[in-house]
């Protein structure tokens, strides 16, 4: 048993962190809210150059053959910076199945749980996960209708797909990877929101003292931090289960997404309340991360949806001794 990341995995995470510090700060996010694509091209290009976009792609087709464990920290980091890019759709869902080319193009994905295709207008391929299998359609053949998200950088679209052949039956696995990637991003978002709040609470003074010295503030933030610190291990464990195709991987991923969604929502509540009015303005940066957290906590199945699946599994008559679920 070794439940930890390798130095290499941390180094890759740190490299991405450093790159995003340069190419995906709050200014970049505000630019994405305003520009045509809603994206951060410089960051995306760098991720491509670093090989991140093809990390999960089979070596045979030019990828790095990495596993979910290798990339989960990277995804958490993209959440930390609220990277406005379809990285989960591209890196986690499409590339591993060779549904798109390894030349830095992006994919948009629709599933019954996430029916709106994010950044579809700038995607090369629209991937659909259906009960019967996966389809991949060139954007040119897809009718898109723009929908507006509360997160100004997330460009959503209703899609009208032509009949196209099933290109892969790995639906379950693709879906789980999408869920895992989103759960990881939510942990990063929660972490970032709490950092912003601690920083603010240290310097903002009322009644002659920093508001962070008030017990009410401390306890709000402590509760949010606890929720996050107990969601992360479930996310990392789910990554490991996916990487070995664990029998109960879908349950492990569901546990992770339920916990990560709840943690991100609690962090956003605590962050906003502890900031007060300043956090309620769009001039302050908090909302850029908070609105992403709102969107992703509901995407790819929200906490209630995944908890329902865990519940159905726990209480299914065919469920083997529940302790097995603990292994």
């Amino acid at each position, binding site marked *: 048993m070794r439940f930890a990341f390798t130095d290499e995995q941390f180094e890759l995470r740190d490299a991405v962190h450093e790159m995003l510090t340069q190419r995906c700060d709050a200014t970049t996010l505000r630019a994405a809210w305003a520009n045509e694509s809603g994206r951060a091209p410089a960051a995306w290009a760098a991720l491509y150059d670093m090989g991140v976009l093809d990390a999960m792609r089979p070596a045979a087709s030019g990828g790095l053959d990495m596993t979910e464990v290798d990339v989960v920290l990277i995804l958490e980091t993209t959440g930390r910076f609220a990277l406005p890019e379809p990285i989960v759709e591209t890196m986690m869902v499409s590339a591993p199945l060779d549904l798109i080319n390894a030349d830095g193009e992006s994919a948009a994905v629709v599933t019954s749980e996430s*029916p709106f295709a994010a950044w579809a207008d700038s995607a090369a391929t629209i991937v659909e996960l259906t009960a019967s299998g996966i389809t991949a359609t060139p954007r040119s053949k897809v009718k898109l209708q723009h929908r507006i998200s*509360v997160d100004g950088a997330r460009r959503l679209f209703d899609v009208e797909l032509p009949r196209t052949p099933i290109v892969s039956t790995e639906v379950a696995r693709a879906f789980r990877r999408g869920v895992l990637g989103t759960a990881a991003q939510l942990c990063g978002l929660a972490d970032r929101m709490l950092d912003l709040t601690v920083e603010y609470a240290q310097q903002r003074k009322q009644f002659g003292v920093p508001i962070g010295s008030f017990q009410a*503030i401390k306890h709000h933030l402590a509760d949010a931090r606890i929720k996050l610190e107990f969601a992360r291990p479930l996310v990392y464990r789910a990554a490991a289960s996916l990487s070995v195709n664990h029998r109960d991987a879908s349950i492990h991923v569901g546990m992770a997404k339920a916990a990560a969604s709840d943690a991100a929502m609690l962090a956003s509540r605590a962050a906003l*309340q502890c900031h007060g009015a300043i956090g*309620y303005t769009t001039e302050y940066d908090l909302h850029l991360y908070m609105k992403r957290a709102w969107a992703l906590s509901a995407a790819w199945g929200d906490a209630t949806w995944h908890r329902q699946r865990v519940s159905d599994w726990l209480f299914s008559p065919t469920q083997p001794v529940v302790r097995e679920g603990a292994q």
Partner: protein
Amino acid sequence: MDLSFSPAEEAFRTEVRRWLASNVPNPPLPSGDTKDGFALHLAWERKLFDARYSVVSWPHEFGGRDASLWEWLIFEEEYWLAGAPQRVTQNGIFLLAPTIFQFGTKEQQHRILTNMASGEHRWCQGWSEPNAGSDLAGISSTAVRDAARNGWRLNGQKTWTTRGAFCTHLFGLFRTDPTAERHHGLTYLLVDLQQPGITVRAVERLDGDDGFAEVFFDDAFVADDMVLGDVDMGWKVAMATTGSERGLTLRSPGRFLATATKLIELADSLPSAATPQMKDRIAQAWIDAHAYRWQTFWTVTNLVAGGSAGPESSMVKVFWSELDIRLHEIALELLGPHAELVDGEFAHWMKGYQFALSGPIYAGTNEIQRNVIGERVMGLPRA
């Protein structure tokens, strides 16, 4: 104990319901926190005023109906259940007016109230400053005596002024005695925003509307007849207003009953999302909305009998502000991946959620309110 309304009150309810049914804008108006939306809301408020529905509880002479507290509550219930527009003039009508009735001279009342009720003058609140939020006594904007012109010269800055960008006047506290500290030496002033020396900068709210404003005072002028209450005694006057700010709650049960009803309709329209566990939470929220209604009836019965609302209003503020968030959280969960959309038929739920999130922050954060409850309601020692 008699929980029925009188025939007269029921008749009033019917009259109000009829009038609203045929007059409430449909489709609903756009947000009143944008320039254009605000103008449309003003037209609606003018219509209310002409029908004497703008300020039903006020005396007839100022455009009201001398309605009883009960009639006022009935009006509010019907107003919200009819899905009528949010009142963009509410800060004047519900926060300033009670103070003017209490502290204003007859002359001030006549000069100010009717114009306020008609929407001719729109009032915004100038409480907070960059360094005076929860700690309101930290106010540093100054008013210096200008004997020559029989008035005061204002300098400083106010912030988080709701709808300040669309208003004509501001009411707020200014430091008139520079030697006094904290709650002392403050004066309650009524300021015309349309004059040189005042700059108003709109500030975008979470939902993207220009709901806030910063107001900068650079030797702006206020005449003596715009001082409310005594000079240097502004804190006492202001406390009366923040009292009625939390007292706003007196009018809001109808708002949450309406939201709870819409929530049930939403669940009915989304059968696959409306699981037993969601229905359980909806039932709880609906019960809470009614708890608020009856708690209000309890308070109003007491007020009608001559009682007064004390620090208990802090409990009310915490309760409704957190109920409002719960109601919207449930709706967003029902909507699942559709929740993030701010276009389409469900957009008002995300809009409402963002609005609800301000509840525990404004009018004294819920943390401050809980301190007040602990200390002034329960008698726990101050820190």
